[in-house]
């Protein structure tokens, strides 16, 4: 079974803090994704990565950066957290694009 894990289920941070969200997959997938989910806005793609050290912006990259130093790990970084980044963050991985995606359990981030 493919397993995608995320470092925290719930996280509370203060405005201005630097926040790291970690995602690890155990199936040697090439592609990894970060999404955020907000009521009324659905799921939106923040960044994706198709190989180690490779990344591409998604639909809403502003205020975020990512890091992929190892194939199995994809990190989302909020350089200076703001209240409008309070959201559910979901990580996913897949084989080549268009193949089946597998999601982690999600991190509910609250920025106060």
């Amino acid at each position, binding site marked *: 079974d493919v397993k995608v894990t995320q470092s925290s289920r719930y996280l509370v941070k203060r405005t201005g803090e630097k926040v790291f969200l970690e995602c690890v997959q155990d199936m040697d997938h090439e*592609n990894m*994704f970060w*999404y955020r*989910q907000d009521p009324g806005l*659905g*799921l939106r*793609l923040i960044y*994706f990565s*198709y190989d180690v050290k490779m990344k*591409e912006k*998604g*639909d809403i990259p502003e205020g975020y950066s990512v890091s992929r130093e190892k194939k199995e790990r994809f990190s989302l970084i909020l350089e200076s957290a703001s209240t409008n980044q309070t959201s*559910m963050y*979901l990580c*996913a991985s897949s084989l080549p*694009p*268009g*193949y*089946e*995606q*597998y*999601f982690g*359990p*999600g991190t*509910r981030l609250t920025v106060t």
Partner: protein
Amino acid sequence: GIQVEQSPPDLILQEGANSTLRCNFSDSVNNLQWFHQNPWGQLINLFYIPSGTKQNGRLSATTVATERYSLLYISSSQTTDSGVYFCITGGFKTIFGAGTRLFVKA
């Protein structure tokens, strides 16, 4: 870009009832997935179904790629089926439907 529309947006069922959820896409696609998002937010893979029909227990799905739609059938619904059902397509830039929110009453 491709648009994905799901219907109905909301559905309330009595336990034991059957239902059909629909996903329409505006252009031809070569991949399609159905997910169930449970009340805790976890997205659970149901089917990867770019075409044809698949079945898994009480759930089945059919994609007719030439007519640009996919259907998810839930039979003998249970309260644990409650949640939001999404269809998605796309390559790197995943395209999500808005979801169907299902509530199954005991």
